[in-house]
């Protein structure tokens, strides 16, 4: 039986706790989009500006655990910004998109929201999963 060390537990705990998750996939090379910088923002409706909630980098599986806590996840308009341009530059390629921003509305924060990004240097797609 495989023993679970404290690092695994930490990883699982952090991965499970965020009600909002993402997954970046490099569809050109058929690999996870690893080491991509991204940030999560919420629209402050009073000031009508975006305020940054968290910033992170995808791991080797293309995930970025711990995007937001349950407490911070209130209804509103959010934005996930992926630094795709820098990612492709790091692989020595040019890209059509300097970065990708996905803006979405959360009405019921009790649900889980999974927002994957499937991308190549000349295309991308996303969908609402859970």
């Amino acid at each position, binding site marked *: 039986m495989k023993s679970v060390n404290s690092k695994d537990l930490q990883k699982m705990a952090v991965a499970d706790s965020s009600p909002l998750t993402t997954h970046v996939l490099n569809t050109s090379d058929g690999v996870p989009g690893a080491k991509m910088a991204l940030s999560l923002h919420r629209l402050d409706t009073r000031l009508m500006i975006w305020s940054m909630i968290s910033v992170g980098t995808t791991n080797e599986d293309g995930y970025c655990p711990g995007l937001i806590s349950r407490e911070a996840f209130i209804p509103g*308009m959010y934005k996930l910004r992926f630094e795709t341009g820098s990612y492709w530059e790091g692989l020595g390629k040019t890209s*059509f*998109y300097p970065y990708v921003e996905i*803006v979405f*509305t959360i009405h019921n924060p009790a649900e889980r929201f999974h927002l994957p990004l499937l991308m190549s240097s000349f295309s*991308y797609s*996303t969908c609402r999963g859970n």
Partner: protein
Amino acid sequence: MSAFRLQQLKSHILSDRKITAMSPSPSPLTTHVLNTALGVPGSNMTLRLYQQQPLTTVWHRITTGTTNGDGRCPGLITQEQFKPGVYKLHFETGQYWASMGQTSFYPYVEILFTISDPGQRYHVPLLVSRFSYSTYRGS
């Protein structure tokens, strides 16, 4: 004079370019909206094209338009205006679904792209449903 003709003349006078049926030469940048939920063109969707000023990074609105019955929006930009740089197409997808009495996960969709060679043709389509969207660089 017909109401349609009056509308055309009015749009010629307004400051930022409005789409008319009479655009002279084809735009080097085109788009096409497809409603993947229903398998139809995304028609009557408002969209705006912005160009980023390189020094200030301020967005400058170039064109406002509405997709036609085929989901297309001719005359987005002229060859003269089409300089290298970063552009943004803003699609009012939320409004589009609301006009059909439906909600959508995305209030709008913005696609930012870099034009390095304005001598080429660029096609930036948007395939959209209420809960997904995709785009690619075509020509």
